[in-house]
């Protein structure tokens, strides 16, 4: 543990193992001694080794498990990870909360389902549309609400999520109502048909990897820095020339696009879609995954999704043993308890066990106040 303490990355690296591949690290000789430089390159090697190990683990995992049930759980965890990565950008960097991710997830799912069945679109095109449509809807919701400060986006997305869920249920022939749509074709990309779980698993793994890489690029970039700056001080960010409304909108749209992508993949995986997985309850779970996993950490989305999914499965089995006849709604009590425990003992989330979050807990800053106070001064 003590060694780990010593090789913590400096504030500002995303705590990401691949960071050293891209990072141009400037050393200031007066402050940093030779030892820490050695530690840093050692640390970067260690991080890459960890990423590689985890990747190999997930590559060989399906060969070790023979159960389709477990494979299915892994696929769903992967899809949730995609959503939580997007939500993590919105919450951990832009400082906004969305309680509507399940709705974007569902919009993506239904878009892919409807276009590939009733409209007979080729499946890749339907998948693309499953990303575009939620993105457009997010832009529409985000534009007016993000101009307002604070948590208006949370309220707007909450209402939106409930509304969309009702639309899925009441959509008549278009959405198939509560019983949903069946007969969604398998996804086929240039002759490759993802008709078996094992194929789909590797597809999802590839998408998670690709999305992680893209997000890693984003965080390291000028835009990522601006998003972090907005979280730290919106007034200063504005004064530095950052279009905070646009940046937050982009982060929100991006999170919706990822949720839509996961939804589209979900539709092509299950080949059947109904409103139940896209309820407000699921949106709350996505937020839970993001927070429990750790905002602004590289491993957070994977850990959070994995833990919440595993726990959901365990509770589904365990709760009826303790409380006979209890349904899924009891799960939320346990999720609530877990959230409280994580917040008390590990406010940075599980991901912060492995790498500190990009933006640490802010140590008290002298005279830190909003600009609204300074308006009154002078």
């Amino acid at each position, binding site marked *: 543990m003590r060694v780990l303490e010593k090789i913590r990355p*400096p*504030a*500002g690296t995303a705590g990401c193992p691949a960071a050293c591949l*891209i990072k*141009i690290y*400037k050393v*200031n000789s*007066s*402050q*940093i001694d030779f030892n820490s430089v050695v530690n840093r390159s050692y640390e970067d090697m260690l991080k890459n080794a960890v990423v590689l190990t985890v990747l190999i683990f997930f590559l060989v995992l399906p060969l070790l498990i023979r159960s389709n049930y477990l494979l299915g759980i892994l696929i769903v965890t992967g899809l949730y990870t995609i959503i939580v990565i997007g939500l993590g950008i919105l919450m951990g960097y832009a400082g906004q909360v969305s309680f509507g991710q399940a709705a974007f997830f569902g919009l993506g799912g239904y878009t892919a389902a409807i276009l590939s069945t009733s409209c007979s679109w080729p499946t890749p095109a339907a998948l693309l549309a499953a990303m575009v449509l939620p993105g457009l809807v997010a832009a529409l919701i985000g534009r007016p609400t993000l101009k307002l400060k604070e948590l208006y986006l949370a309220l707007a997305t909450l209402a939106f999520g409930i509304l969309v869920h009702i639309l899925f249920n009441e959509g008549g022939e278009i959405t198939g109502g509560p019983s949903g749509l069946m007969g969604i074709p398998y996804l086929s990309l240039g002759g490759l048909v993802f008709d078996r779980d094992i194929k789909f698993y590797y597809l999802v793994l590839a998408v998670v990897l690709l999305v992680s890489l*893209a*997000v890693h*690029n*984003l965080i390291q*970039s*000028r*835009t*990522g*820095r*601006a998003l*972090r*700056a907005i979280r*730290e*001080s919106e*007034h*200063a*960010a*504005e*004064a*530095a*020339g*950052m*279009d*905070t409304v646009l*940046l937050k909108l*982009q982060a929100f749209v*991006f999170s919706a696009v990822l949720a839509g992508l996961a939804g589209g993949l979900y539709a092509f995986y299950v080949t059947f879609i109904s409103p139940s997985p896209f309820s407000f309850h699921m949106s709350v779970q996505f937020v839970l995954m993001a927070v429990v996993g750790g905002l602004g950490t590289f491993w957070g989305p994977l850990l959070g999704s994995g833990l919440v999914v595993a726990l959901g499965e365990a509770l589904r089995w365990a709760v009826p043993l303790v409380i006979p006849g209890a349904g899924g709604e009891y799960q939320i009590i346990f999720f609530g308890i877990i959230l409280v425990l994580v917040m008390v003992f590990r406010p940075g989330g599980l991901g912060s066990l492995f790498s500190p979050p*990009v*933006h*640490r*807990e*802010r*140590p*008290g*800053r*002298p*005279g*830190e*106040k909003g*600009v609204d*106070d*300074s*308006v*009154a*001064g*002078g």
Partner: protein
Amino acid sequence: MLLEVEGLTRHFGGVAAVKEISFKLKKSEIFALIGPNGAGKTTVFNLITGMLAPDAGSLVFEGMSLAGLKPHQIAAAGITRTFQNLQLFGGMTVLENIMAGAHLKGRTGFLKALAAWPGSAREEKKIRQEALALLKEVGLAGLADLPAAALPFGRQRLLEVARALASGPRLVLLDEPAAGLNSAETKELADYLKRLREEGKSMVLVEHDMETVMEVADRIMVLNFGEVIALGTPAEIQANPEVIKAYLGEDEQVA
């Protein structure tokens, strides 16, 4: 004229925080804004930078009206500011604070960032080098990798000033940059501001430390209850009976 302020007015409720203020700012000038607490100095800053909308009056910067522009657009026009109550990006490193201050120098947007567009790495490297050069100039280079919140207060003030300079603005509004600094740090800051003026930078300075104001300011405008009560050189201001009255009350004499 760099900045022309004409009849600037802003009310809060029924109270006029700023009342028909007019002044013209020349290039390479340090223009100080002084006055008792609540005189409206920070409000003037908030109005110039678009954080507040004026009820009346006009703001023209380099011949362009600033009316209706958002704060980030005004920054892009070439006006940046510091905050009286520090608004550093505390969890980010000192270097990142400067690089964030140089946001306007970059072009890489959301999509290009996701794809790690080839040009963006070059741009990032350039911004980083310039940020390091600026840190060296203000003597913070050795602290580049520390989180900004971990800096001693005086260094934080300096970082806030440096961040406002990072995008290469033509006009910088400094809101009490010397507040909380010790005398050595204040002297350092005053020297730095004079150096910036020599390089052609214009500044509006709100400051309570009169010694610093008298030393660095080319002209001083005195506000009281949102109104201009005097405008002139440091020597004129020191001799102005209105100013003495506002600061010290009617019957006092100033040496």
